[in-house]
């Protein structure tokens, strides 16, 4: 079943007709219960897409949620849950009041509100926080309150706009897992906007890449990694070796993506190619070796992995698994 469908969506956001719009999506469907990450550089239109769906940004075209066209509905009738990057917690209310806000608006009675506050705070791991003041919370706690508040109204679609963007790196990983577990458990269709590929890969079953207001890639994380449709998408999903095919002696023209893990660094006379190490850094258990390849026709830079440190300046042999390269 389709949870969200978008057709002929154009957001101009004040840009004059005749110039490219901020966002243009001819067609997009998201299945029920799907976890989707929308990824792209800043200014690519990711947040704009969420805001159009929520109805807090003017657009032309049509958006349906659970088969219901929502274009004529004001934002407060769309039943979407929106989580803002800065959390947008209400400073004049305590944690419980923030969480129960949507229920209060909907006219829920006090007892129900209390039960829900308890249930939701428990869900996000903040039991007992109901009476706390907002300004005494840490960033991670604020993030959880914002999530609980969004979930309280049982939205049809959950829209998360850079939900971890204002938190420090250490917190992000653990919170990302938590958010994923919660939405998995609730089986809510979720769109997660981020510029960070580790967040996108860590969260989503499907990744949509936006560049300059248009969808340039759409697929599972592994599809996007193994078959990036363009150099820029390859870079976005984390590839570092996007080079001319001729520079590594392949029998065709054009650019190829070579995963760093497919490259083996050997003794200078054992490799398929010869390169010079220009830099060597240690990260995530392996050495990342930056190489300069020189052939008659072209020069190229490559990043490879190595289990041992190689002194910059030394010459090495380079072998790679041709079957793992991708033409783009």
């Amino acid at each position, binding site marked *: 079943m389709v949870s969200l469908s978008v057709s002929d969506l154009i957001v101009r956001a004040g840009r004059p007709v005749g110039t490219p719009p901020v966002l243009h999506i001819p067609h997009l469907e998201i299945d029920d219960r799907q976890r989707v990450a929308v990824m792209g550089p800043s200014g690519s239109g990711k947040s704009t897409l969420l805001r159009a769906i929520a109805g807090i940004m*003017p657009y032309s075209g049509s958006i349906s949620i659970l088969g219901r066209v929502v274009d004529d509905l004001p934002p407060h009738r769309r039943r979407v849950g929106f989580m803002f990057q800065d959390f947008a917690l209400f400073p004049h209310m305590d944690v419980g009041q923030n969480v129960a806000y*949507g229920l209060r608006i909907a006219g829920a009675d006090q007892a129900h509100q209390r039960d829900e506050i308890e249930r939701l705070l428990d869900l996000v791991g903040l039991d007992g926080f109901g009476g706390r003041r907002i300004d005494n919370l840490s960033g991670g706690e604020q993030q959880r309150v914002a999530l609980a508040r969004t979930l309280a109204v049982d939205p049809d679609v959950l829209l998360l706009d850079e939900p971890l963007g204002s938190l420090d790196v250490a917190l992000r990983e653990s919170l990302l897992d938590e958010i994923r577990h919660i939405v998995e458990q609730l089986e809510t269709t979720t769109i997660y906007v981020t510029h960070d590929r580790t967040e996108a890969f860590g969260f989503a079953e499907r990744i949509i890449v936006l560049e300059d207001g248009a969808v340039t890639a759409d697929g599972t994380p592994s599809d996007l990694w193994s078959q990036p449709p363009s150099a820029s998408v390859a870079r976005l999903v984390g590839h570092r070796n996007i080079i001319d095919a001729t520079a590594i002696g392949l029998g065709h023209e054009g650019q190829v993506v070579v995963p760093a893990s497919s490259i083996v660094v050997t003794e200078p006379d054992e490799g398929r190619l010869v390169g010079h190490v220009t830099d060597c850094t240690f990260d995530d258990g392996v050495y990342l070796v930056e190489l300069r390849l020189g052939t008659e026709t072209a020069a190229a830079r490559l990043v490879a992995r190595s289990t041992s440190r190689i002194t910059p300046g030394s010459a090495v042999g380079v072998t790679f698994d041709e079957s793992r390269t991708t033409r783009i």
Partner: protein
Amino acid sequence: MDIDRTRVGPITSRWARVALVAVPLLFLGYFFVYPLVSITWRGIAPDGVPQLGVLTEVFRDPALRSIAWFTTWQAAVSTAVTVLVGLPAAWAFARFSFPGKRVLEAVTLVPFVLPTLVVGTAFLALAGPRGALGVDLTGTAALIIIAHVFYNYAIVVRGVGSFWATLPPDITEAATTLGASRWTVFRTVTLPMLRPAIASSAALVFLFSFTSFGVVLLLGDLNSTTIEVEIWRQATAFLRIDIAATLAVLQLLGVAAILTLYGRFQRRTAVAFRHRAAPLPRPIGRTQWAAVGLALGSMVAVIGIPLGLLVVRSLVEPNGGIGFDNYRAIAELSASSGAFIDPVLAIRNSLVFAVVAMTIAVVIGSVASAALSYTSRRVASAFDTFVMLPLGTSAVTIGFGFLIALDWPFDLRASVALIPIAHALIAIPFVVRTTTPTMSSIDNSLRAAATTLGASPGIVWRTIDLPIIARVAAVSGAFAFAISMGEFGATAFITRPDTPTIPIAIFRLLGQPGGTPFGAAIAMSVVLMMITAGAIVAIESFRTGRRDAW
């Protein structure tokens, strides 16, 4: 066609925005700009034709020339002394946390909100003809300057202190690691960084000392007096409206010059350092504790001694005994038909006027704040300057302007309503300054968040905007109330014999011979002080829970 259901800002209609600007514009236009223009025209053209006769007379008059000179130099000295005395306390507040800090911060507000007449009376009780010191220092520049230092102390402590707190301590520490001694660091790093804050505070202190009325009226004499007092005296005692108007124009020019300087320095403090406020440390070691203690102790002494003495003096009865005779005199004077001052009526009037003035000021001021927060930046910045103008204009000028101008289109000059309107006019800039930061800080994402949670625009306004604004509106209302209770300069012009306010009654009582009226004046001052202190307590309790300091 774009579907636009998306304006989550609170004011969506163009006409509503126009109204937001128009309401304060019309109010200030009629009650502020029009009277000022009338005064100016009177000053330039007393007989309807522009002429230099009165101006020449003013410049030739040696008495007026000496008053202008006295006004300027006493303001300069008052400013210099206030800055010097205020800096240590500013430092202690900006750099340290210590027990009782909140209370002490509230204490610094006291003199600033205190009515000028109470300050004047307090110093009369200290060094007047019947003062505790036994020496009559009235008419000396020293007493006026000391009173000005007392009165304006808070401006330096708060103005410089809050800016000082935003300077990252790392910068001074960096200078220390580069080999600079503590004094060198202060001279070469701290002081230059503080300069815009010191300059803008100093400009304000200078402005308030330059246009000082109540304090100088009570503590000065015919020679040691300010232009402000002279305007009043020329207009009400000598009935020389032309000279008063000319003096008012000259004073306005001086005020405009000071405000221009102030604006320039103020903008520079706005280029502040973005410094995440780490919790402030306690003073370390005996030397720091002693320095902080000394800074704050002297502050408490400067503020506390005159006020404490005023309270003590109010309990000294005319016959020399200790008791509540002075307070009883308040009621007895009202009861006796012979006395032409009715202190109880004055208290009642003041309370009524203050409530009305507070209401007007909060309504007009909040609308102005909304205009500043919700209109385009270009409109807002021009409008901001306009709304702030009454802050710089002296109270006497405002009262004088009412008297000259408000006979058109209706003769309002005899109306009682003028008193609360004048008070509201003076309070509006404070209301705007207090409410605008909060109103504009309500992030649109808060409204958007409420919307996506199911709140319609009306509910968003009721549950998000209103509760957040209500608290600062209450703070600004308490400010307006206190300002109205103590207002003297404008009221002195427009009051009628049967509508005295507390400050007017105090002033009239001080002008009467004998110990009983003097004692009653002191007692009335204490009453007024208590009412304004109550307003401050209210302000501080409303403010509790707000993240950003005022």
